[in-house]
């Protein structure tokens, strides 16, 4: 099959690759770039587990072709922790028990990252709206909402 050359930035690093046009972004990230934080749950865009940010916007990587990210800046949960330290959002998920099995967590983290970048002081309703896009089978969601609330608080405190 013909390979399509592409160039993109993932978590700040530039990559140049040639991929099959049918290759999914999720497989490209996980297998070609060995970035394992992005998980695949349902493979048809419902559960949101595979959510990544493409140019700052939440995208279901299981419904996107890798070539669609040509020229884009992609961020995944692999890149959240910096300098060996958990990000504020990750710390908040830890503190508030925002995960159990951890499988949906990367998607939740990326949805929350998008929200907090756009809306640094979200209302509870705005957090709920964002989180309701993704499925979690373990927690019942409350602690995820609390984690995002806590992260927003911590970011505000940090900004002072």
């Amino acid at each position: 099959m013909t390979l399509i050359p592409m160039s993109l930035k993932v978590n700040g690093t530039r990559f140049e690759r040639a991929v099959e046009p049918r290759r999914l972004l999720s497989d490209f990230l996980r297998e070609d770039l060995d970035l394992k934080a992005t998980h695949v749950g349902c493979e048809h865009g419902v559960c949101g587990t595979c959510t990544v940010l493409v140019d700052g916007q939440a995208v279901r990587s299981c419904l996107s072709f890798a070539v669609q990210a040509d020229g884009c800046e992609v961020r995944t949960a692999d890149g959240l922790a910096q300098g060996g330290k958990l990000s504020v959002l990750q710390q908040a998920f830890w503190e508030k028990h925002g995960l159990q099995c951890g499988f949906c967590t990367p998607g939740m983290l990326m949805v929350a990252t998008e929200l907090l970048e756009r809306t640094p002081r979200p209302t509870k309703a705005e957090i709920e709206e964002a989180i309701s896009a993704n499925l979690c089978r373990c927690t019942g969601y409350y602690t995820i909402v609390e984690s995002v609330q806590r992260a927003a608080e911590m970011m505000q405190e940090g900004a002072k």
Partner: protein
Amino acid sequence: MTATFPKHIAAEGYIPPSRQQEPPRKSYKYIGQNLKRVEDPRLLTGHGQYIDDIAVPGMAHAAVLRSDRAHARIKRVDTSKAKALAGVYLVLTGAEAKEVTGATAQFASPPVVQYCLAVDRVRHVGEAVAAVVAENRYVAEDACDLIEVEYEDLPVVVDPEAAMTSSGDAVLHPERGPNNIAQHRTFTFGPVQEDFAKADVVVKRTLRWGRSGAQPLETVGCIASYEPGSGKFTMYTNSSFLNYVGWLVGASLGVSASKLNLIPCVTGGSFGSKLFTHKVMTLAGTLARAAGRPVKFLEDRLDNITSCDNHGSDRIYRCELALQRDGTMQSLRFQVIDDYGAYFQFGVGTHGNSLCQIVGPYRINSVQMELIAVLTNKCQQGAYRGFGSEVTNWMLERMADAAADELKMDPIELRRRNLIQPDQFPYVIPSGNLYDSGNYPAVLEEALRIAELPKWQKIRDDARAQGRCVGIGAATCQERSVFSATEFWSLNGTENPGFTLTSSPESTQLRVDPTGTIHVTLGSPFWGNSPETMATQIVAEQFQVDPSQVNVVYADTQSGFNSTGPGGSRFTVMIAGAIVGAAKQVKDKLLRVAGHMMEADAGDLEFRAGKIGLKGAPGKEKTIGEVALFAHYFRLNLPAGDDFASGVDASYVYDHPLTTMPAADRSHLGIFYPIMGHMCHLALVEVDPRTGKVAILDYVAVHDAGTVVNPMTLAGHIRGGTAQGIGTALYEKFHYDENGQLVTGTFADYLMPTLAEMPPAIRVGHVETPSPFTEYGIKGGGEGGRMGAPGALSRAIEDALTQYGVRCNELPLTPRKVRELVRAGEKP
């Protein structure tokens, strides 16, 4: 304390003595704290090492061609085009696989034969017909599309009642006999006939529990490697019963279980559905051996939802509850038809399970069950949070509500009147199981206190005055923990080969390294629970060390010990037992060495704040690290003899704390699930009668799981379990149409709750009645949420729709179903 027995069970010698070493205490330093989970950092950063994150050198990828027919003979499979595709290493049909790999192992007796790839006949949509191994998954799936299968359709059986009279070509497994009845048997526990004859009132209901399933976000997978010279297999697996599943897989592959080294992975949720993942492991092992290279097979979502072997219970109940006029429950009898799907891996284990708490928290004197297990053209049943007991909880709560209606009593008052009282424990129920301890009235009152029931009643009454449909439901349910394997075979009947008691133990190794770090090795994997956090808190309590001084690792089966795995809400109880046993040996050793170092008698020393010190002498102490360092490297300065051999470590196997054999005539089933938790769930709902939409306005869940190790993670289980219970009650159904097609085969159709379907909050409370049989009095609490929500919600909806005379006898109560009920009630 005097135990309570039903008259048909002889009390003498029935209850073995307790083996509890660590009695519950008034206060702890680390147990009972909301320690942040030690598992989380690596899960939050993408370093979880789930099965799909693992690759081994030379690994190829498998995909499976699945049947689009519900019931058909396989006339011909042509794999030539698939084999010719570039990048394809191997294509294997069911007939070819059968030449090297036997049937999948199972517990049913007599067995129902199943293969990892179907041979001659497919029995449900999604059953595997052929497998491809290729250089990557894309090519493997391409090759599946090139396989040609010729089928001859057979009559499809979907309706469980119709399955009872199937004959001819509609019989799924003709070698078992001329029908689709897998088992039909009646069990009587106590004087049912007499109790019914004496009753003032007999309440009758027909109830229908729909088929739902765990559907964790991670599917089942295996990476198998085979070494031709040694005949050894290495498998990465997300099975939770790591030390059991090898027996099953080895039997199918035709090798000793000792030839399999199973390496555990972090598991992305199970809820029961990954206890045994033997079909996937057997397939991966078969393909790796045939292809001559490591093979990864990971189910995709369609593989899992159509063929995971773990759909939940699917039952029709015809129940009768006998009561006195004052609401006192006397006897329960029922017929249950259970649709097991196309195979029968656990036999009727889910009913064995139900019988451990079949009378709920109520003083019911006798029970009779007529069980009819049928086979249909659906994915077979397996395990899902509750393993059958969630269904009987719902059935019993529906019957309690029906009785309250019939007797015109308040449903909460009727429950209160029938609860087993705190001074009646240990309490033996008619089926023979023992309830170890409890305070059911305290749980009910705590739930009512948190809910502020009068406020809820006012909300309901005010809403009704405005013409809105608001209702309240209560469920008081049992939450058994720590299974014994007798539940899997005790109902097979005495003419089938019986078995003996299995301990289903759990074990650990504790090792104090020369830095003073305490390493805990678990023989069972992480499946979404918090095994490392539980072990850390219990070890910290045992040694009085900071949790940061504890490190938890997982053993593979080659290096591990005698362990069973998480399931049946057992892990925290069992690992606590193993840790207490191992810690005693390790502490004794540390005290002996410290005694020599400090020239003190070991008996005068104690563990305090990370140190070993002389009792009553503050400051006279050594750190555990100092003592461990000495024990590791300076043994020659210590007395001769094994007591001072270099190093500090011990392993310990903890056996099931309390289980006994069923009676030979099955007049009772013995003690098999005795560590008994309890819960009260209260729901306030509003129903829109025009759309059938149910909104949960408020929700309270109070649980008694004995001594709580970590209230935060227990509350997480309760809320998450309740979310699944909401799904089961209101949304989720594996719906098969009349042709046996699974029409809810994606997450767009199989509707699990999102945050939008959840109540604004689930307010959780804990009551702690420690078990007299387990270490520290811990009870399991992994399944409760899902085991309570359906009962509370069914009643709340019924109460909300009082004006329509609605009876909620069938789950799930989808908007469409609720509309149907309202419409029927609107008719003049």
